[in-house]
């Protein structure tokens, strides 16, 4: 994606979100400047967002190429394809696994699962290395968080 298309997408996104915010905000009662309702501030913000979205879409077609005089890419140390479904699914999955297992299994299964799943997102990790990492971190976690910091999440829950 060159920068122009990125700005098109970005602008459209802002536009969409802005409109949604305004519509929802209006439902909270806007009120007047003197007596601001719950919706005043949000509608204001949403309108602003929409305007910026329009401006961005407008400039996306016009301003040629790059803002290249800005700081060097902080992502300069990254290489390889941007799209990483395996990594993405594993990372998000790991976080969700923590939530679900934390609720229904306890700290221990949640810890193990989240580390394991997250580690599996990296192509350099084998099942064994991921499992080892997960085991090690679970043990460390139990010691530090449960016994050390008295984290309220129970070690095991049966539900």
């Amino acid at each position, binding site marked *: 994606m060159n*920068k122009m298309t*990125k*700005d098109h997408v*970005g602008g459209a996104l*802002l536009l969409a979100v802005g409109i949604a*915010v305004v519509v*929802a*905000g209006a439902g*909270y009662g806007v009120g*007047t*400047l*003197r007596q601001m309702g*719950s919706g005043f*501030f*949000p509608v204001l*913000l949403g309108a*602003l*967002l929409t305007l*910026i979205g329009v401006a*961005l879409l407008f*400039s996306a077609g016009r*301003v040629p190429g790059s803002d*290249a*005089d800005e*700081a060097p890419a*902080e*992502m300069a*140390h*990254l*290489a*390889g*394809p941007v799209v*990483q479904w*395996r*990594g993405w699914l*594993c*990372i*998000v999955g790991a*976080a*969700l696994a*923590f*939530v679900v297992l934390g609720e229904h299994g306890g700290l221990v299964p949640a810890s193990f699962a*989240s*580390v*394991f799943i*997250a*580690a599996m*997102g*990296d*192509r*350099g*990790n084998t099942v064994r290395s*991921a499992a080892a*990492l997960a085991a090690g*971190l679970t043990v460390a976690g139990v010691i530090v*968080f449960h016994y050390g*910091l008295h*984290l*309220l*999440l129970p070690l095991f829950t049966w539900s």
Partner: protein
Amino acid sequence: MHDSLMQLVYGFGIALEPHNLMWCVFGVLVGNLIGVLPGMGPLSTISMLLPIVAVIAPVPGILMLAGIFYGSQYGGAIGAILLNLPSHPPHAVTCLDGYPLTLQGRGGTALGITMMASFFAASVGIVVMIFLSPLLVKAADSFGPADICAIMLLGLLAGATMARGSPLKGVAMTVFGLLCGVAGTDEISGTARYTLGLSELRDGVELGGLTMGLFGIADFLVSVNRTTVNPANARVSMRDMRPTWAEIRQAFWPMLRGTGVGTAFGALPGTGPTITTFLAYALERRWSKSPERFGKGALEGVAAPEAASHAKTQVDFIPTMSLGIPGDPVMALILGALVMKGLQPGPQMVADHPDIFWGLIASFWIGNVLLVILNVPLIGVWVRMLRVPYRFLYPAALFFIAVGVYSTRNNLFDVAITAAFGVVGAILLALEFPLSPIVLGFVLGPQLEPNFRRAMLLSRGDLSVFVTRPVACGFVAASALLVLLQLLAWWRRRRPGAPTSAR
């Protein structure tokens, strides 16, 4: 001034109390480590340690957070110089001349100079803070809600426009942050706003969840399977780090100039450390009689930006502590942490809680001394940590994030929120939106709205109050000027053949 000195002595007493000192050391160590490791910046680390702050007393808590902040500045230079790996954007500049120096076998010298510059600059920053803050506090006593609104507006605008990338996008992200702050229950009316029908969101988005998602998880999503690290060149011995007198002399004036830049910009709300270091570097290069040496291992190119960064870090605390207006996202986060403890940084805080204010200032000095002492022997350790493969680091970090975010409100849902913000952050990064203004907006939003409401209530809906009150008018004018400057820059860029900024 005599008064300030007495307060300072008092502050040292507080900072040197064993309990407080312990947390300060902890913060400094963690910050230094974080600074060395790529990916986790002070923002993510402070978010992760927010749960600890929730549990311990305010004084050690804030000392720890501050320690993390300036500790990470020290650490960042190490990775930048030795491995050409800027853990954080401000240190990208240090790579330009730092890494070539390492390749010439002078990495140790570069580090030594950096440490000197950093300590000097931090000291200057602290002195400025000591004398400037009480003045600011006195001035702020007369501020009304309209004035506060105007100041926040300037801060938000400055943060939005001076961050990396397109200022328009910066403003958009600030607004997005403000909106995230709105989500939850409206205090005045009790209406649930933007809670998407989820009862868990009635208490709003949790600060740690937002920041860990945007800066932690989003970073993982962007970096997974894509990091490249070059571990060679990382052998440094302690003796290497002592620069010769000639080298010190070479670095002296750049150090001073860098400190000047950092101090000047630190006081301005909204300017980030990245801009400051870049400016210091650019200035140094333009000042130099032999600019062609830059980029190939010029010591000035390391001394100036590092000095700027450290001076700025210290001075950054001034508007945050004395006015309650954070100068950049990390300050915003620290402000959020203070609010979490029931404190409201600003003019009242210095009067009501002198132990926190002056203890904090005293701890800066102690912390900086500690960092210099610690970094000399610990260099080897940091470098070895840099060798831990990313594929082990990020799952561990994710785990700590999950636990940390959960523990702040004992709510697993917050972890899901973190994941959501992680996805949002990754998308925004892909679309080249800056993320730091979101934090600024999120933290200031809950204060901006009530102040605006109050201002309008007092003026009976009359917007002109923003121009009739002198303080408010001044800040509104400054904001307008900022917008104008941005528009001018944009206009100039539209013309073909517009000069690109030399670097």
